[in-house]
């Protein structure tokens, strides 16, 4: 339960970190919050010659709202996001989902970019980002790019990040007045990894009809993915009892896997049951907001 030896590097600027990644490539791994990486190191399921500790890079820790875009620095902790008034206002779905992320002492350290780069299929943030059409700003020493989360995360624990690249910023479009959100998940205990979760965004038109919708399930073997068959059932309609039933029936058909935590059958059931809960919540929220 002790990590294999490594060399510890602690750059103080993003530029210095990118230099180190350019030099050491896949021999190096970024250490951010360490709440997933350090257990893997302790179990020796992962070994790296170099750990590039970015915790000293203060310029990566910020939350700001800039022209309808919420910009969150890579090193921003869950706990900062959870308690941020800016996030609560500009991305209520992100704030709501953060309450489900692990436990308080884990949220103290874990970071938003670390969560996305780790790409745990039970991770809440990948689902939220998919629902909100979020993207990540990725830099290397010589290049930078902005990539939609759906292209960035390629499957279970897999992203399109090159060894010399790091996420420097997370972009989330600001919530609009015609949108309603909801998040629900099932875990054995609060704070445990989710068995299944649902992130929801609904864009209403001016007649209480649904212009656009994102229904995203987390906990499947490929991580967060949209349930298109359920989205279709509510898009173009209102949130009527009929449409909710149809969407939930479609969610019970999604492709899920069995493992030690749950059978595929239970996962499909949870998908459908949680979707119902979250759609009813959205319905209440829409009425309360009077949209």
């Amino acid at each position, binding site marked *: 339960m*002790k990590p294999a*030896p*490594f*060399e*510890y590097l*602690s750059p103080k600027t993003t530029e210095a970190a990118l230099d180190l990644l350019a030099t050491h490539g896949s021999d190096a791994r970024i250490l951010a919050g360490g709440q997933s990486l350090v257990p893997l190191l302790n179990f020796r399921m992962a070994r790296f010659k170099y750990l590039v500790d970015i915790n000293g890079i203060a310029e990566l820790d910020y939350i700001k709202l800039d022209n309808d875009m919420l910009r969150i620095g890579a090193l921003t902790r869950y706990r900062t996001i959870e308690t941020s008034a800016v996030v609560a206002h500009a991305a209520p779905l992100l704030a709501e989902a953060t309450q489900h992320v692990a*436990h*308080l*002492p884990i949220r103290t350290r874990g970071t938003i970019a670390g969560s996305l780069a780790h790409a745990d299929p039970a991770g809440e943030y990948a689902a939220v980002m998919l629902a909100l059409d979020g993207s990540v700003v990725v830099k290397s020493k010589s290049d930078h790019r902005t990539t939609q989360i759906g292209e960035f995360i390629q499957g279970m624990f897999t992203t399109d990040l090159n060894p010399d690249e790091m996420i420097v910023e997370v972009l989330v479009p600001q919530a609009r007045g015609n949108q309603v959100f909801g998040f629900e998940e099932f875990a054995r205990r609060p704070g445990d990894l989710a068995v299944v979760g649902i992130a929801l965004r609904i864009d209403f038109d001016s007649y209480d009809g649904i212009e656009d919708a994102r229904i995203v399930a987390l906990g499947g073997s490929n991580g967060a993915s949209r349930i298109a068959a359920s989205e279709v059932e509510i898009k173009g309609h209102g949130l009527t009892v009929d449409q909710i039933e149809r969407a939930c029936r479609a969610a019970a058909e999604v492709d899920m896997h069995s493992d030690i935590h749950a059978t595929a059958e239970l996962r499909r059931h949870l998908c459908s049951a949680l979707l119902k809960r979250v759609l009813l919540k959205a319905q209440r929220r829409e009425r309360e907001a009077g949209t």
Partner: protein
Amino acid sequence: MSGEIKIAVTVNGRQVDATVSPRLLLSDFLRDSLRLTATHVGCEHGVCGACTILFDGQAARSCLLFAAQLDGHNIWTLEGLSASGDIADLQDAFSRHHALQCGYCTPGMLIVAHDFLKAHPSPTAADIQQGMSANLCRCTGYWHILDAVKEVAERRGRSPSVEDSE
């Protein structure tokens, strides 16, 4: 390949200068190098919470931090918190409610309860249950721990001057 790292860290209000190996976990640094053995080591992968300490004022797992990361930071362990008197009411309530049997999880429980109550000054019973779910206890069945934390939350809520003086 793994050179030694020099750190200057404040532990329980005291400045400590040390030279550490990169792979030394904070939990082992506290226990073996500083002989601060109230920080218990349970699972060593962030699940059980027995090794919880305060890192820059907030509860964190010391088995998921490296001593090399401490330079310039501020650590409190149960020894320091206990001596400060800041958690005397929690310790008293744990004792009276029989919120421990073997005591192995207790340092982590006290520190999580301390941080939780600072972040949630007037919690509901459900809030407390969720907050304290961060840590595992294999003896008590948890109810006594929850009772103790609930009592302290209520008492602190009734005497706001105690909170303000922090």
